[in-house]
C-alpha cells in the first residue's frame, strides 16, 4: 500500500484506526532504526518511536502534503530524537562528553560476535560528533537518504548537509586512525 492510500484511510473516520495501524507497521522499523542510532539504548529508542507515532496520529489531520508522508514522518522523528537528547542532557545537567561516555558504555555492553568490534568503534566515533551532525551522517550513511530529501527533513540546505557529512566522515576516520 502506498502513502496515498494510507492517507485516504487515515482521513476517513471509518478506516482511521486501520489506516494508522498500517502506517505504524510500514514505518516502525525505519523510525526505530533512526532513533536507536541516535539514543543508543533500546528503552530510550522505544520511547522516542512511540512518541513519534503519537505525534503523527495527533497531527495527521494537519498534514497538507507539501512534502511526502515519508519525509514528514522522518521530520517528526529527527526532531523527536534531537529533543530527547537535549532534554536528557538538561535533566541530568550533563555536558556533551558525559552523554557520549554514557552512550559509549552502552555500546560496549551490546552483545555480538568479535567481528563487531570495528562496528562498535565506528559507533563510538559517531558519538564524538554533535547530535545534528551525527543525525546527518546516519541519514546519509545508513539510510542512504538523498541530500534533497535530507534537506526537506532537516530544514537545512543541501550544500550545508554535504559539508556537514564530509566533515563527519573526516572526523570519524581521524578517530578510527588515532584511537
Amino acid at each position, binding site marked *: 500500500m502506498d502513502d496515498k492510500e494510507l492517507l485516504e484511510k487515515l482521513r476517513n473516520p471509518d478506516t482511521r*484506526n486501520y489506516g*494508522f*495501524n498500517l502506517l*505504524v*507497521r510500514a514505518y*516502525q*522499523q525505519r523510525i*526505530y*532504526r533512526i532513533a*536507536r*542510532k541516535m539514543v*543508543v539504548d*533500546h528503552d530510550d*529508542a*522505544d520511547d522516542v*518511536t*512511540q512518541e513519534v*507515532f*503519537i505525534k503523527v*496520529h495527533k497531527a495527521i489531520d494537519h498534514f497538507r502534503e507539501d512534502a511526502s508522508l515519508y519525509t514528514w514522518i522522518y521530520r517528526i522523528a529527527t526532531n523527536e530524537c534531537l529533543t530527547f537528547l537535549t532534554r536528557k542532557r538538561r535533566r541530568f545537567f550533563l555536558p556533551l562528553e558525559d552523554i557520549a561516555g554514557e552512550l559509549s558504555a552502552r*555500546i560496549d555492553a*551490546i552483545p*555480538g560476535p568479535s567481528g*563487531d568490534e*570495528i*562496528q*562498535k568503534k*565506528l*559507533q563510538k566515533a559517531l558519538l564524538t560528533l554533535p547530535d545534528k551532525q551525527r543525525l546527518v551522517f546516519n541519514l546519509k*550513511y*545508513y539510510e542512504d537518504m538523498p541530500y534533497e530529501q535530507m534537506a526537506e527533513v532537516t530544514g537545512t540546505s543541501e550544500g550545508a548537509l554535504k559539508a556537514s557529512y564530509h566533515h563527519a*566522515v573526516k572526523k*570519524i*576516520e581521524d578517530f*578510527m*586512525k588515532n584511537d
Partner: protein
Amino acid sequence: MKRLEDIPKKDIFEAPEGYFDRLPSVIQSRVTTESSRWTLFAQPVWKYALSLAFLAAGLYWFMLRPATKSPEQMLASVDTASLIAYLNESDMSTEELMESVPLDNKDVDEIHAGSLQNLLPDDSILMELESDIEFEN
C-alpha cells in the same frame, strides 16, 4: 583501518525479539487512551461542570473567608492587663492618650476627679501629719 569505505556497513543495534510485533498494539492502545481522554473532556457537559466548579469554589471562598475585624473589635479581644502593660511601656503621654480616645465631658470630669483623689494622701498619713503639728506646738 583508516577509511570509512573499508568498513563493512552493518547495523549492530537490534531490537528485542518480537518487539515489532507488539509495538503497533502498544501504540494503538496509547492513542486510544489519549483520544478517549480528550474526547471526554471535549464533551459540552465538562464545560458546564468546570464553570460550576469555579463558581462553587468562588462562593466557598467568599462565604468562608475570615471576616475582617474592626479596630474596636481587635482591641476588645486584648485583655486589660496586657493593655496596661503596653501603655506603661510605651512613650505615649496621658495627653496623647486622651487625644486619641474620644471622650465626652463626663469622662473627662471623672478622670480629673480620680486623678485628684489619687494625689491626696490617705487618712492615716493625714492624721500622723496633724499629730506632728500638735506635738511641735
